[in-house]
């Protein structure tokens, strides 16, 4: 449990700049989610914080102390990897006990037994403790891998898409479970995901990375409602924000090149006509694919809407975002 911070961290792999002068502070007890497409530097951030890679420039502090020159073991962070999660030559029980047996912790056997049992129970893998780790399904492997982090009491948890290989139900369960652990223990989390439900529901802060640069760091709500750029706006929201020419709906503010419309920024039943091209009923909501002056956009309507392809809907932008030619927000 500690504050974790990066100060001007730069990391290169050969000619590629993986992290470019990244500074951010993960407050003690917060849950920070890093968003960005593949190659944005999310995993690199975790590797640099954990000590598996050392940055070319900058400083990393955990609990106010610089750890840049320390080994991963000395930093006392737990990490869940996206791949190769388990030691294949050990059983599930031995995998879970592995960090507790480390020369760093030297946990007494009775204590190991208790902690491993508790974590196995929480992750619903108690019946698999005696199995070889290679005999598990992908979802079970990943749960054990999360368990191996949870048995410890580290300064921070670093997780690299830990739930991505699990089925929907288990993912939802574990999402709640991780959030509960975070709330109960007050542990700092640095979490990488592609899943925006995870980002929206779990995060206290979201960091948006673009080609190694941190472009926005704020609460998920702030990023959703007040994105700094098209790039940041596109990270959150389902269906994705519609980006259209700024003057499509008439007068645009000076300097604006594009208009950004989330579904709730499209008022229906007023304004100008658009054609419904497709209706997707998802159960809890229904998505409308519209064609407006030869531009496609996607919005949502109530689940039981009677609209069908070929119908005409009037739409009007409501408090939209405007972006300039470089994609930065202007209004």
């Amino acid at each position, binding site marked *: 449990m500690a504050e974790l911070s990066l100060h001007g961290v730069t990391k290169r792999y050969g000619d590629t700049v993986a992290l470019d002068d990244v500074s951010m502070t993960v407050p003690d007890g917060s849950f920070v989610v890093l968003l960005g497409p593949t190659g944005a530097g999310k995993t690199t951030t975790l590797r640099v914080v954990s000590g598996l890679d050392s940055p070319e420039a900058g400083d990393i502090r955990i609990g106010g102390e610089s750890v840049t020159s320390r080994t991963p073991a000395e930093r006392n962070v737990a990490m869940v*990897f996206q*791949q190769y999660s*388990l030691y294949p*030559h050990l059983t599930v029980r031995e995998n879970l006990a592995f960090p507790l047996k480390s020369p760093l912790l030297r946990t007494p056997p009775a204590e190991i037994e208790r902690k491993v049992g508790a974590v196995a129970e929480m992750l619903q893998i108690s019946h698999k403790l005696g199995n070889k*780790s290679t005999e598990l399904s992908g979802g079970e492997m990943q749960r054990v891998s999360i368990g191996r982090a949870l048995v410890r009491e580290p300064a921070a948890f670093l997780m690299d898409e830990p739930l991505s290989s699990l089925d929907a139900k288990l993912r939802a369960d574990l999402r709640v479970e991780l959030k509960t652990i975070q709330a109960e223990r007050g542990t700092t989390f640095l979490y990488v995901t592609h899943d925006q439900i995870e980002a929206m529901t779990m995060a206290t802060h979201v960091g948006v990375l673009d080609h190694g640069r941190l472009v926005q760091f704020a609460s998920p709500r702030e990023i959703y409602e007040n994105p700094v750029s098209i790039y940041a706006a596109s990270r959150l929201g389902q269906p994705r924000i519609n980006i259209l020419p700024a003057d499509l709906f008439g007068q645009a503010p000076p300097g604006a090149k594009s208009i950004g419309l989330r579904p709730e920024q499209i008022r229906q039943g007023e304004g100008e006509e658009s054609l419904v091209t497709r209706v997707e009923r998802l159960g809890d909501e229904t998505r409308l694919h519209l064609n407006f002056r030869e531009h496609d956009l996607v919005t949502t309507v109530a689940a039981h809407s009677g609209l069908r392809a070929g119908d005409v809907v009037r739409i009007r932008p409501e408090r939209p975002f405007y972006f300039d030619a470089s994609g930065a927000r202007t209004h």
Partner: protein
Amino acid sequence: MSSYSITAPTTAQKWGAGILVVLYAVITILPLLWIVTTGFKSQNDAIAYPPSVLFEPTLEGYVNLFTTQTRISDEELAENPPETWYDEIAADRGMSIVGPSRFGGRFLNSVIIGFGSTFLSVFLGTLAAYAFSRYKVPLKDDLLFFILSTRMMPPIAVAIPIFLMFRSLGLSDTHLGMILLYTAVNLSLSVWLLKGFIDEIPREYEEAALIDGYTRFQAFVKVVLPQAATGIASTAIFCLIFAWNEYAFAVLLTSGNAQTAPPFIPTIIGVTGQDWPAVAAGATIFLVPVMVFTILLRKHLLRGITFGAVRK
């Protein structure tokens, strides 16, 4: 089964493959079988022509192999009747056992030198292979090529320099000298084989161990070594087979103290005429350790322990 499968062989294919394997096994096992049976033949059966396939087994060859004998007259025999079963076997041929032969000592030399050099080759090879696999070693490719280049000529090509070197260093006819020599020859094979095996082990396991609170060396011992067990076992078998069977250097560099079994076995022929059963008995016993070693490590050779551990 009428359906066609690209993975499951048909009955005809299974039989075909089976017959080929059995045929090959017969061809390769026959000479071995010949050696093993000759060890249990009497001297007359051993040289009989046409060869005797059915014969009365005797331990004569083994007794001759392990003992030193001297010819005695019938009167002496009557005075000292044979006391043990092996005395009796010797007495049947008018011989009396006067002591053990040198075979036991030579065999022990083979064990010390063979296993000693195998241990050293695999130990040093694993450390070197790990370093080559994981660290940024300057001139890595050149170094690896240089290591391999030591195998590009037959080792015996450098026999004379090695002979001179051993003489001036006092390593001639010593166990240490032979262990060092066989280790030097085996090390290139061992480094290359093990590097391949260690390259196959994803670094993520070590990284996980580093974060779990272990040092680099502890991660190596606890995570890399167990997963490299398959590679270490097969490398050890290759190293042992070479060191165990090596003949040329053993002839050249050992004569008494550190002489191994391969140069000794042929000398048995000369002791009491052409004693083929004794030679065959020596060869049979000589086969056993490598066979046992291979069988013991077979489990590791067959078990792909890292298989299936990767999250898909």
